[in-house]
């Protein structure tokens, strides 16, 4: 778990309203300040996760996202701007986050998660938030999170449906328990509104804040699913797969 770092008077002023939250308080804020969170892609989901964690006072964000900003990013990737079209996504994200929280340390990695960099990226973090669109990235992240025993918040969406769970290695099912393989007909580009990715992004950020801050009840072993067309929410119980290729012992 992260090492707590003492707050400055400026930080006490900025975070005053959340310091009032029962069970969190200054001790929780100090843990957030000492935390390093890896966010895999800062697109529709990850932009909002990063923005909320920056606002909440997480000390370091490691942002992994390759490529440059395209017009079709702008309906949901809230750290990207029209003026920055054609420039690096991760640099735009860094700039926007620093405007919000100049105290934030950012490690900007201009590449996506893969089998070749997952171990190194996960090793730098206390917690990972999975916002990636490709299952190869998600499986690489899951494998390393389990191997290095790092909590992993798993956010996903399609159209107006979304789901989220928190994987605590050794205690809860991992991604491969649920889905050892990718859907054969999955496409990287799919229908979605920014308000859907933003909803799940906020929930993902809150899961990270709870795990790092040491309070509340994370979605451990539970999958929250939602259909925002009908505003239907369900809490489903997950089960570990005793034959899981990643986390079975």
């Amino acid at each position, binding site marked *: 778990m992260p090492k707590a770092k003492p707050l400055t008077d400026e930080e006490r002023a900025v975070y005053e309203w959340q310091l009032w939250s029962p069970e969190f308080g200054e001790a929780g804020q100090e843990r957030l300040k000492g935390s390093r969170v890896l966010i895999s892609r800062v697109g529709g989901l990850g932009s909002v996760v990063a923005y909320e964690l920056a606002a909440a006072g997480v000390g370091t964000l490691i942002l992994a996202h390759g490529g440059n900003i395209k017009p079709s990013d702008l309906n949901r990737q809230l750290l990207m701007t029209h003026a920055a079209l054609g420039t690096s996504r991760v640099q735009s994200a860094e700039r926007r986050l620093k405007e919000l929280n100049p105290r934030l340390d950012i490690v900007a990695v201009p590449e996506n998660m893969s089998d070749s960099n997952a171990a190194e990226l996960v090793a730098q973090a206390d917690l990972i938030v999975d916002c990636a669109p490709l299952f190869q990235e998600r499986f690489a992240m899951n494998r390393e999170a389990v191997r290095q025993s790092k909590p992993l918040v798993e956010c996903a969406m*399609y159209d107006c449906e979304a789901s989220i769970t928190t994987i605590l290695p050794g205690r809860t099912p991992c991604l491969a328990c649920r889905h050892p393989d*990718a859907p054969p007909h999955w496409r990287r580009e799919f229908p*979605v509104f920014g308000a859907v990715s933003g909803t799940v992004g906020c929930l993902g950020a809150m899961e990270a804040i709870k795990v790092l801050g040491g309070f509340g009840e994370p979605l451990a072993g539970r999958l929250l699913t939602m259909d925002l067309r009908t505003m239907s929410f369900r809490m489903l119980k997950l089960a570990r797969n005793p034959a899981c290729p990643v986390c079975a012992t």
Partner: protein
Amino acid sequence: MPRVHVTRNLWRFFPALAEGPFDLQAASAKEMVAALDARFPGLAGYLVDDAGALRQHVNLFIDDEAVLDRKTLGDTLSAGSTVHVMQALSGG
């Protein structure tokens, strides 16, 4: 009869799924898949493999709990059961 909800993700392949949820005569998860396929020919191929095991990107939840028997789909259904057919989603 058990009530079955199918993820919207599969509606693009079977548009008539939008008429759901569906009340199906089935006493097990296996029978439910067969009943779905009878109503939507070809749908079983998205859910189970040639041996009848749940495909690896698909999840079934009966009364909010994941089915345990993914190989033979022997988990039982009661008349009041609610089933959710889901598949892996990602970010973006």
